[in-house]
């Protein structure tokens, strides 16, 4: 509540300050503070994501710089193992690249792909859900049957199919160039259904509420009702799904890359690193696959825990 006689039209700064002031008192923050597991998950996810984003700044070596990579240092074990070199804390791979640096760069690619894919699914799904829920009738039936059909395939199959088709369309030679884009599209397209269903059902609920009816009576256009009134009221569950889906998308990318249809070794993601390292697991070079694997597990687990917490914290029935 603002002080009496404040400026009648609050500026952007005033509003932002209000929002932060409210957040400090928000249930979500209180619930966060009282859950140690969630705090740890947030710290782990935060550190992983931040260090991945800052990879070019903090990585000890540049794994893409061929000039600084030397085969002399190939297959070095981690620094604390006999024969390790302190310059390469987590050891090196077959080409002599520093594992820590490749993992940082690889996480960066994984997170980028995951976030972009989730953003794509979110936009597709939310749009489809709003249109289906608000429009109803034939539009609703068509969109939801498409969603039903897609749900009968595992998401990874859709992504594989999509990846195959798009790679075939682009000329063979240059497919590496588009690999990042293709995999984002493939994962994004394979995951929109959940968003669409949830948004559709919330839209149906909100559509029947009196404030939407009242807005219609006052002559607000359908588009404005959808964007201003219904959309914001459906975003709570969308946020939860997006968080959980981020973990799924990262995992999906890792799976595709592990299968060899994802990102090429020149642009390694965590999944690519695991696949490459996997071939040398039994020849004793365990560090090449274990470290990217542990990073992936930590990343997915912490994001998932955050998503679970968010789901419970935003669910009025569980409060």
């Amino acid at each position: 509540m603002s002080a009496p006689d404040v400026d009648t039209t609050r500026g952007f700064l005033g509003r932002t300050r209000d929002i932060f002031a409210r957040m400090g008192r928000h249930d979500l923050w209180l619930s966060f503070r009282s859950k140690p597991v969630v705090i740890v998950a947030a710290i782990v996810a935060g550190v992983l994501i931040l260090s991945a984003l800052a990879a070019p700044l903090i990585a000890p070596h540049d794994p893409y710089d061929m000039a600084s990579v030397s085969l002399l240092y190939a297959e070095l074990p981690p620094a604390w193992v006999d024969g390790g070199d302190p310059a390469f804390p987590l050891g090196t791979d077959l080409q002599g690249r520093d594992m820590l640096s490749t993992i940082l760069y690889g996480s960066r690619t994984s997170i980028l792909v995951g976030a972009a894919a989730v953003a794509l699914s979110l936009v597709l799904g939310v749009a489809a859900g709003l249109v289906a829920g608000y429009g109803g009738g034939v539009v609703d039936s068509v969109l939801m049957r498409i969603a039903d059909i897609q749900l009968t395939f595992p998401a990874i199959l859709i992504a594989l199919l999509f990846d195959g088709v798009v790679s075939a369309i682009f000329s063979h030679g240059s497919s590496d160039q588009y690999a990042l884009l293709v995999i984002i599209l493939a994962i994004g397209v394979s995951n929109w259904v959940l968003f669409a269903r949830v948004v559709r059902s919330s839209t149906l609920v909100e559509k029947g509420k009196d404030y939407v009816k009242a807005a219609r009576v006052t002559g607000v256009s359908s588009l404005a009702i959808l964007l201003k009134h219904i959309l914001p009221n459906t975003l709570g569950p969308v946020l939860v799904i997006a968080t959980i889906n981020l973990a799924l998308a990262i995992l999906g990318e890792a799976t595709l890359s592990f299968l060899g249809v994802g990102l090429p070794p020149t642009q390694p993601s965590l999944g690519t690193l695991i696949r490459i390292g996997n071939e040398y697991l039994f020849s004793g070079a365990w560090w090449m696959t274990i470290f990217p694997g542990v990073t992936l597990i930590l990343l997915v687990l912490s994001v998932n825990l955050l998503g679970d917490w968010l789901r419970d914290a935003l669910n009025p029935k569980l409060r």
Partner: protein
Amino acid sequence: MQRDQQPRSDAAAPPILEVRNLVVAFHGLAGTLRALDDVSFSIAPGEILGVVGESGAGKSLTGAAVIGLLERPGRIDGGEILLAGRRIDNLPHAQMRKVRGREIGAIFQDPLTSLNPLLTVGEQLTETIATHLALSAKAARARAVELLAEVGIPAPANRIDDYPHHFSGGMRQRVVIALALCANPKLVIADEPTTALDVSVQAQILELIRRLGREHGTAVMLITHDMGVIAETADRVAVMYAGRVAEIGPTREIIETPHHPYTVGLMGSVPVIGEDAEDLVQIDGSMPRLNAIPPGCAFNPRCGEVMGRCLSQRPGLMPAGRSQAACWLMDTVTGDAA
């Protein structure tokens, strides 16, 4: 009483709302259901018309038809709706939107869902004001504060940036009323505006609605199933039964000397403080389903004074004292009355 000085529909002033022979039907796979059948009434400027009836009698549907909020598969199959002498039932969609926003306000039953929980009341008010009036953001906000003051929100300049959940149910209903008044409408349709509120708040809200008519000349269509609300607020009453108007007339007349046997039964079933509760009258049977409305008068299976012609001929509204009732008992022309 003050309301007795209010203009009536039979006065010289042309009615704000006139509904003529309105038919609303639902076309489904199982056939057509006539939910409103030949409904006619009018509301004069500043007048409050109470619409009463049991659940399913067509009260809310009448309101929805007037506002233009009929949901598929329901649609208007006949009749006319005139707002200040202009037909609005056949307007193209875009024009209807303008008309109903500017000239008709709506108040719904549940104040908890009548406001968008994510926008401050100020944002909702100014949005609506800006849709209809060419005002600057500042002027719209000033108008919003004014409206909140008018509906009795204390310290409106401070409360305008609050969210709906900062308000109690009664206060929220006041905000909803302010929202309905944004564009200075000629007609307000209030669909069970007090049902979700406790009795003391109810009285305040009703007083507020009554003041609208007095001070702004706003006509109000007050839909409710609560005879107490009607007695306290309405100038005239329309009693609905099975999608038809059974009786329409001045409130006092309807309450004290009802003519239609259904209205008689309805009034008999209202408990009066001080009387023995065992004297309450109950109308036997229940309202017919829409697919099984009997021929002739819809009330004939439950009527104690049913006559031969009630079973075959449908009565229209006939003069009955100061009211009009759709009952053959009132038929003095053919001399067939009991």
